[in-house]
């Protein structure tokens, strides 16, 4: 343990690297904060023959809370792959058979051992080591969280310096990490402290089957030693490469300030290509002006810096290099314009090595994409995954929510953001199906969709299983986890955008992002920003759609238009006496007036009474100042608009007009994207034929062909 003076000395030792991003950039929005909670210096050696890592790690942790801290918890994530008793594999075995993770083959397990851990003054913490399991249900065999105890607590404002040594066996092709032949993707690989939360202690969850990660912002210096023929990519900037400790080996040094994780990859086959995102070329003056106007900020506040883009790509994908860079540039541009400038000097995009199980994953300043051998132009692959994983640099990387506990705050936000970027940069995406590994879209014109459409389609079906706001490992299964935290959360955000209006939502997202950069927000923080920026209390929205499992479905139950009768049956007081209006008298009156149904009603000077019944089919309700909007279109082309607060299960609304109703439609602007049944949002008095006939013919010919195919086996 060291106090502040010790910290300064240590920073001198560890802090040789310049905090270049902070120093070089004039724009405050782009600056890195000065004081991270953690500083790391790690030396790691890859043994290509044995598939092992040997590492040393110096850590300086500063207690930024107001309470003394007497222990420290570390993530040892690779012990998730140590045996079938880990929480990870126990949960995987209980998961849906559709998505169960396979256990590694014999000899392919991975693990990490902390072989030595001591304070900087040499005091050994080894005897205090214990594996802890705090998450419910408890899996006794799990060894992914290690705790050590200090003899003296770390006082508020003080720091502690530790030195660890560790040995790891690299798992073969499991979740997010692994090797195949001599290709490596190394993520979640070093002993990493959890996040100390005042009043709650260490937030350090086990490695779960359905969860990602959470850790504190740190400054990293990492020295990676590999065989000299390997191409290496890593988080941060490479600041040097020199001879390693043995002949034929090279040590690469990477540095990066203010990131909360560090991943690297090594493969002798990588092609390394570098280009620069030149903001002056990618963003026009008009785009800056429009963005500034949208966000209500000065133009200078939305200007973007240049970013060095590094691509590591497999040789067989070399033809896709331009596509990779174009997608990354679009992502840097739109995430930067909308949410805030990218604050780091570099971003490394990795086309994941074949069979390393590492595709489509985010790490600070580095992400893995993933592509196919054949990539049709109309299909946004690899663009979709590139934009999404880069976007995680914003939602997870910079705004660093707890992915164990509130995964929707990054996955949902980023799915929502990805859809917006793809729609802006590329437009519609063709659906892709493969036959014999060949995408049909490379031959035929496939249907095209927007992300928000497909997200909604999957989001509505998952509502009954879990609330979006569920701890990641407590979802019903991986399908529920995935569809809730990605698709349903994104659909909720798209709905919120439509409720608030695009400009307000843009300001909400910008304010939330910039306000919570380099911090660990919770859902309540986002809700607070929404309410403050929009000036409306939208708390109900999150309660209704993200905290519950209630289906949202409003619909038009019926539409009936009837000519208003000139008289009604019964006995009436007329001039002091009683007069009965009989059916015959009424018919006579109607005949005289030449009354007929339809447009003639108007000519006859008589009104039609239209009754529209609206129903709330689902349990979820609109709240706050939101209303269900109803537009009734009449046969003469006129329209009438009404609003319903939607609290009750139904409402009957009547309209007296000189014409019959042709259409009643709720939510005509499509605000309630979260509505699970769009079909009942409108009611055409005259039934639809053409669309149904078209569908029937399509369905029919598919069935005819399937039957005929089956008959060929007769």
């Amino acid at each position, binding site marked *: 343990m060291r106090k502040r003076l010790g910290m300064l000395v240590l920073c001198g030792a560890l802090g040789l690297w310049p905090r270049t991003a902070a120093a070089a950039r004039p724009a405050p929005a782009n600056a890195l904060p000065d004081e991270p909670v953690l500083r790391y210096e790690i030396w790691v050696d890859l043994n290509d023959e044995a598939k092992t890592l040997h590492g040393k790690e110096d850590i300086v942790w500063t207690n930024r809370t107001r309470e003394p801290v007497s222990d420290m918890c570390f993530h040892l994530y690779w012990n998730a792959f140590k045996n079938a008793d880990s929480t990870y594999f126990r949960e995987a075995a209980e998961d849906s058979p559709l998505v169960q993770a396979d256990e590694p083959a014999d000899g392919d397990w991975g693990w990490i051992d902390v072989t030595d851990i001591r304070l900087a003054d040499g005091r050994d913490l080894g005897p205090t080591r214990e594996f802890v399991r705090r998450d419910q249900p408890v899996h006794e065999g799990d060894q992914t969280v290690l705790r050590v105890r200090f003899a003296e607590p770390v006082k508020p404002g003080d720091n502690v310096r530790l030195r660890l040594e560790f040995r790891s066996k690299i798992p073969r092709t499991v979740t997010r990490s692994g090797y195949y032949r001599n290709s490596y993707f190394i993520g979640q690989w070093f002993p990493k402290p959890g996040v100390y939360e005042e009043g709650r202690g260490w937030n350090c969850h086990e490695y779960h089957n359905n969860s990602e990660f959470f850790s504190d912002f740190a400054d990293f210096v990492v020295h990676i030693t590999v065989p000299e023929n390997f191409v290496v990519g890593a988080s941060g900037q490479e600041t040097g490469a020199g001879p390693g400790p043995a002949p034929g080996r090279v040590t690469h040094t990477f540095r990066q300030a203010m990131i909360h994780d560090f991943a690297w990859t090594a493969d002798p086959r990588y092609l390394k290509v570098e280009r620069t995102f030149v903001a002056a070329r990618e963003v026009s003056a008009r785009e800056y002006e429009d963005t500034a106007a949208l966000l209500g900020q000065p133009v200078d506040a939305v200007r973007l810096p240049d970013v060095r883009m590094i691509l590591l790509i497999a040789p067989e994908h070399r033809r896709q290099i331009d596509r990779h860079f174009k997608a990354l540039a679009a992502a840097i541009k739109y995430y930067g314009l909308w949410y805030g400038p990218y604050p780091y000097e570099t971003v490394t995009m990795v086309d994941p090595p074949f069979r390393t199980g590492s595709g489509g994953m985010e790490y600070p300043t580095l992400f893995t994409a993933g592509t196919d051998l054949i990539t049709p132009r109309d299909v946004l692959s690899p663009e979709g995954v590139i934009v999404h994983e880069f976007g995680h640099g914003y939602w997870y990387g910079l705004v660093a929510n707890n992915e164990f506990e509130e995964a929707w705050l990054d996955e949902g936000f980023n799915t929502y953001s990805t859809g917006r970027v793809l729609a802006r940069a590329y437009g519609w995406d063709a659906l892709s199906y493969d036959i014999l590994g060949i995408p049909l879209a490379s031959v035929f014109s496939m249907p095209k969709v927007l992300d928000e459409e497909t997200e909604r389609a999957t989001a509505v079906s998952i509502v009954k299983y879990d609330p979006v706001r569920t701890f990641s490992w407590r979802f019903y299964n991986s399908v529920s986890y995935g569809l809730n935290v990605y698709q349903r959360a994104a659909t909720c955000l798209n709905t919120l955008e439509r409720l608030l209006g695009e400009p307000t939502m843009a300001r909400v997202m910008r304010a939330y992002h910039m306000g919570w950069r380099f911090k660990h927000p919770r859902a309540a923080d986002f809700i607070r920003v929404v309410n403050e920026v929009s000036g409306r209390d939208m708390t109900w929205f999150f309660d209704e759609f993200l905290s519950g499992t209630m289906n949202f479905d409003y619909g038009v139950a019926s539409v009936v238009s009837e000519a208003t009768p000139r008289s009604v049956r019964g006995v009436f007081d007329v001039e002091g006496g009683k007069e009965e209006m009989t059916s015959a008298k009424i018919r006579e009156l109607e005949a005289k007036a030449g009354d007929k149904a339809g447009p003639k009603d108007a000519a006859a000077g008589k009104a039609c009474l239209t009754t529209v019944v609206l129903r709330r089919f689902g349990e979820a309700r609109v709240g706050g100042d939101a209303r269900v909007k109803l537009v009734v279109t009449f046969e003469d082309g006129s329209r009438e608009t009404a609003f319903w607060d939607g609290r009750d299960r139904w409402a009957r609304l009547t309209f007296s007009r000189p014409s019959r109703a042709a259409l009643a439609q709720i939510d005509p602007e499509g605000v309630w994207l979260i509505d699970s049944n*769009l079909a009942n949002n409108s009611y055409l008095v005259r039934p639809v034929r053409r669309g149904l006939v078209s569908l029937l013919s399509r369905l029919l010919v598919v069935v005819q062909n399937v039957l005929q195919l089956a*008959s060929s086996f*007769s």
Partner: protein
Amino acid sequence: MAVWQSIGNGIRTASRRPRMLVDLWLINLVFALLVVGPFFALFKADLGHSLLGRDLRPLNPAWLGDVIYRYQDMAPAALALAAAAVLLYLVLYVFLNGGIIGRLLDKEEGEGTAAPRLFLADCGRYFWRFARLFLLSLVFYAVALGAVPGALSAILKPVTENARTAWTIFWISNLRTVVALLLVSLVHLIFDYARIVVVVREERRVLHALGAAFAFIGKRFFRAWSLSLLITAGFLAGTGLYLFTRQFMPDTGLFWLGLALVWEQAFILFRLWTKMIYFSAQADYYGSRSY
């Protein structure tokens, strides 16, 4: 030359049976309508008065998502229904094959012989023999689609397990599929000739018919197979043409809707016609070589 000649004769014979073609098309259409009917009723109830019903692109995520949500609990029942329908149709064709081959081989009476009474008489006459052949064919299909590709995978496992890139997997996977498809075409070939033998020789013992088919094909394997593959190639070319042209027909407007419907049914007719050509060309080839 004999192969091309038999294909030509087969085309001519099949083309002289428009009545049979129409009958088969009607059977296919009615059966498909019976399958589609309940789904159509469902969609009509949901979408018959909805604006969404005006734009029912088959992959419109709006209504497709809604449908999945509302009917997800019915999916097992729907799949069971679909499987039952396919199985039933398969059995129906085991029955119809007798009529198709019987009438195609009856050169004397031409189209007139495709009259329902004679057609159905042939269906009934050969049904049990064809049913036994069908059951036997399942063993061969299991070998073609399961055992052989499985064995191939096992043999190539060292290559796939140590593949350097995804291209290796791509080629091996396609190789396995191509081998399976070629084997399926061989099983088709063998059992087509077995059925022809049953009809031509009035053979009652299906194992004998199968043996005769093997013997016949064995003596002229490549020619017999190439005849079958050439017809398949023609069918694939026709299918490609249909799919290519179909994508240019929009779903809007009555004219295009009508044209698409006609075009789709024309393709079904083409499919059925090709099936008749298989039988008639192979029967012609069998006749020209077995005497």
